[in-house]
């Protein structure tokens, strides 16, 4: 492109008529990155071959030029040679900027990209590529679980939802490659639709620390980023294979990247995972298989001053849900809970039957940026997501193979961001975001809609300022405002509509009345403000103190607003409330950190006070023809979560290291003065690692995970009459299971196969002692034990 321009300009300069030819062109040549003067840069005027060099201040003067357009080639030993066209009329001044050599540019790009949009006053926990690869056959939730302060809310062992400092679902925002995931994340049984193998690294922010993307992360933010592609000519890739004994499955993932020195790059990646029924120590967990197929593709052009990138990913996952978890009423629940074994155990199979989930998520993104000298880096991003969630239940008759739930969520987002350095010390990031979302529920399922059809419009604006006061102190402040408008079409049961008094409260939103249903058109507006204020203080050599206050506002999600019906795998009726307003969380967190090769630690206490916190809890027993069901209703209350996360690492010999993690969180419903449900129990992880880089980088680790019993929980156990025995029995739905302890072993060794190929072989065992246990945060804990021993073999080839 540039060469053509040069040629054209060259010709035009030849044909132009020479006139007054004693003008000078003067100016400076500077470094594009830091603005420093480039000494000894050579400027050559095309045509006349007149050449000058810059002085010690980077200044130059070219005499004897006409009123004309010139092509000037500027070169410097440390920089890329570049051509410029300059229009000279009289004495002209012009400054030229040169880019560093590519190797250096790459470093800068990497550093510059290292997410400036994340808060610097909250301690981030990062899982690097190497650690991430150990979870290749697992899920995003499994990997995050390895961090302190993160647990997971599971449905079986394949639906793993991250739980950050006690909060989950809509309160945890996932940013996948710069795109906020919109994948029906409100559902506690909806795992994040992200292929763990497509992420180069994972960062966790325990708070609303990514105002660029959201102001509603009351719990926290998870950022998954792709690996950076260097700006040089190369072709590289990796293939990772995992075989696991439990589930008798494999996971295969492969990635290939091609990059060019001129800035172009492209990368393809794919994952295939197939597991059959998993096994608890004593029995097969029937219908718990998984079949996952993912692919992603990205390509783009990256230079220091501008770039454009296109990204597309497809995530498709079919997940079996434990057959024994599909129940009728309270009587069935009693039978299931009272039995120590699941009520249905079949032989091992790879077949996935109902109940199951089949989810497809498409994500497409196009992003471009341009750096302007005057005001900074301007980025524009458009992304589109389509999430299709199919759920199959145990059904009867003609509907046997029909879906029970078929949701399609389309999301379009447009973001414009400006990154600028006001001075050397102050940087400012601002931007606007517009989002349109459409949720369509297929009515052909023969099951009333779980959540309604809706259109949702979001408009957000934010600004984050950072002030590096001195070498030790960094201050940060940010604010964001979001406006959300929801246009909903919801069918209510007439009986529910009336029992909630909606007929008197909202007569104006009724669109049409049917035999036993009412079509209503609620139009909801939410105005949410959020912000963050923090400081980081570095002292002595290794110590850092982080302080952060954040306020996050979250609009209620569709399920909290509109749920109305039976939830099969929980064997309960769930009811939302149309009248909810946004919940607002205030989180204060403090971290004291020491980073040192021998002994490093971090202690992070926090307090999160949430007003209008939306909880779901049992309110009554409802009689139906199918028996009695517990009714769980959402309500708003004031909640408080307090906790501390501790990490420590000590190298007590040259190749031997001890790692420690401890997490505790206490959650209370302040209005009712009782504990919150589903709070992670206190847990500690301790690990001994032997690693020897001299001997094929061999790594051996033994890890102990200890989970205490959760002693603080709201008591929602209820009684039900059983006609067969003519007795009244207690349905123990809230009492948490006992303490448990697991041992895990992991090992890996590297082999240099050829000059460019490295082979890494790993072997691991999880639940080494084949301990039978149940996890309080597993929604299927009533029905079956958790996973038994699992042998894993990993083979990785880097090429």
């Amino acid at each position, binding site marked *: 492109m540039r060469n053509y321009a040069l040629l054209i300009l060259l010709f035009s300069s030849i044909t132009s008529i020479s006139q007054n030819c004693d003008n000078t062109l003067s100016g400076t040549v500077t470094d594009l990155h830091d603005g420093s003067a480039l000494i000894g840069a050579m400027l050559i005027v095309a045509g006349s071959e007149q050449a000058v060099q810059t002085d010690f201040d980077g200044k130059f003067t070219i005499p004897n030029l006409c009123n004309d357009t010139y092509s000037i080639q500027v070169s410097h030993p440390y920089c890329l040679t570049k051509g410029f066209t300059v229009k000279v009329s009289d004495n002209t001044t012009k400054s030229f900027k040169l880019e560093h050599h590519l190797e250096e540019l790459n470093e800068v790009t990497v550093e510059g990209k290292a997410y400036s949009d994340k808060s610097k006053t909250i301690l981030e926990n990062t899982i690097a590529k190497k650690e991430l690869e150990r979870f290749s056959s697992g899920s995003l939730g499994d990997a995050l679980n390895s961090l302190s302060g993160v647990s997971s809310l599971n449905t079986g062992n394949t639906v793993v939802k991250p739980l950050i400092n006690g909060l989950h679902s809509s309160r945890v925002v996932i940013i996948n490659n710069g795109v906020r995931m919109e994948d029906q994340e409100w559902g506690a049984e909806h795992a994040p639709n992200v292929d763990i193998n497509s992420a180069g690294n994972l960062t966790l922010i325990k708070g609303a620390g990514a105002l660029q993307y959201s102001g509603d992360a009351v719990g926290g933010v998870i950022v998954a980023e792709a690996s950076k592609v260097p700006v040089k000519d190369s072709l590289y890739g990796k293939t990772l294979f995992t075989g696991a004994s439990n589930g008798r499955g494999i996971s295969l993932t492969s990635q290939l990247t091609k990059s060019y020195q001129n800035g172009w790059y492209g990368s393809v990646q794919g994952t295939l995972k197939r597991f059959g029924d998993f096994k608890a120590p004593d029995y097969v967990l029937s219908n718990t298989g998984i079949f996952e197929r993912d692919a992603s593709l990205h390509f783009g052009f990256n230079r220091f001053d501008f770039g454009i990138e296109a990204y597309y990913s497809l995530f498709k996952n079919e997940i079996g849900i434990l057959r024994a978890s599909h129940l009728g009423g309270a009587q069935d629940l009693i039978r299931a809970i009272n039995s120590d074994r699941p009520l249905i155990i079949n032989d091992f199979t790879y077949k996935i039957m109902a109940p199951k989930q089949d989810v497809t998520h498409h994500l497409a993104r196009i992003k471009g940026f341009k750096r302007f000298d005057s005001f900074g880096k301007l980025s524009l991003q458009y992304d589109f997501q389509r999430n299709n969630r199919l759920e199959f239940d145990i059904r*009867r008759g003609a509907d046997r193979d029909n879906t029970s739930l078929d949701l399609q969520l389309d999301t379009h987002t447009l973001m414009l961001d400006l990154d600028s350095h006001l001075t050397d010390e102050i940087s400012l990031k601002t931007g606007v975001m517009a989002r349109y979302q459409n949720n369509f529920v297929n009515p052909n*399922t023969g099951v009333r809609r779980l959540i309604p059809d809706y259109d949702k419009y979001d408009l957000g604006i934010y600004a984050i300022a950072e002030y590096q006061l001195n070498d030790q102190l960094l201050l940060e402040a940010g604010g964001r405002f979001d406006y959300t408008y929801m246009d909903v079409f919801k069918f209510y*049961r007439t*009986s529910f509509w009336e029992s909630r008094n909606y007929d008197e409260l909202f007569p104006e939103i009724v669109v049409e009345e049917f*035999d036993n249903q009412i079509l209503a058109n609620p139009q909801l507006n939410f105005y949410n403000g959020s912000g963050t204020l923090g400081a980081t203080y570095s002292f002595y050599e290794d110590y850092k103190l982080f302080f952060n206050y954040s306020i996050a506002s979250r609009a209620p999600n569709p399920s909290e607003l509109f749920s109305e019906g039976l939830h099969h795998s929980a064997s309960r009726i769930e009811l939302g409330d149309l009248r909810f307003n946004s919940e607002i969380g205030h989180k204060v967190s403090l971290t004291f950190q020491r980073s040192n090769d021998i002994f490093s630690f971090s202690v992070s206490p926090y307090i999160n006070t949430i007003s209008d916190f939306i909880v779901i809890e049992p309110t009554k027993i409802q009689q139906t023809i199918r*028996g009695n069901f517990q009714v769980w209703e959402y309500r708003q209350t004031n909640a408080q979560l307090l906790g501390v996360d501790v990490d420590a690492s000590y190298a007590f010999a040259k190749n031997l290291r001890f790692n420690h993690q401890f997490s505790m969180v206490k959650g209370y419903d302040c209005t009712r003065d009782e504990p919150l449900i589903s709070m992670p129990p206190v847990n500690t992880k301790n690990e001994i690692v032997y690693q020897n880089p001299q001997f094929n980088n061999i790594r051996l680790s033994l890890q102990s995970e200890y989970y205490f019993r959760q002693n603080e929980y709201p008591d929602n156990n209820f009684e039900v009459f059983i006609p067969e025995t003519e007795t009244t029995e207690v349905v123990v739905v809230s009492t948490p299971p006992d303490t448990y302890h697991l041992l895990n072993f992991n090992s890996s060794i590297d082999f240099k196969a050829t000059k460019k190929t490295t082979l890494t072989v790993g072997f691991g065992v999880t639940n080494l002692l084949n301990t039978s246990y149940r996890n309080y945060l597993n929604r299927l804990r009533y029905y079956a034990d958790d996973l038994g021993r699992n042998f894993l073999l990993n083979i990785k080839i880097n090429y």
Partner: protein
Amino acid sequence: MKKVKFLSTVVLTTLLFTACSNDDGTPEPVNEEEVITTMTVTLTPNGGGTLITLQTRDLDGDGPNAPVVDVSGDLAAGVTYNGTIVLLNETVNPPENITEEVEEEDEDHQFFYTIGSGLDVTTAYGNFDNNGNPLGTDFTLTAGSVSSGTLTFTLRHEPTKPNTGLGDAGGETDIAVAFNVTIQ
């Protein structure tokens, strides 16, 4: 380059707004296809007499209203009744007969009759699946001496067959309704 970016922006914005204007009116209602709203047990006395019906009706399904349970009269002591069970989904118009589906999938269904203490009746299955295991949409009921108590009907979906009763039948409960019955 700039032109490319500008064009792509225009294209994308157009996409965005065409998507926005994609409005196809109000959604259509969904009626629960599988819900059983009504169970009617008809007891016809052998050799003539008053026909007794036991009915439970829950027109809002899983909604907040409790089922309406009705027993048409008392059983006569010493009389044997032929029982038939009819299941309806009355949320749709005309009502759908669910009994037919249950009888078609007879291997996947079974009714159980639980007799509360104090009530002197005996029951026997009247129809069976292809494997000779009980289905129970037809049955016989023999009223013994004068007494009263609960008679509970339970329908299990995908039970273990054969079984010795509710205790080891497994499956999930589609219906569980208790009637207060008196024998005069």
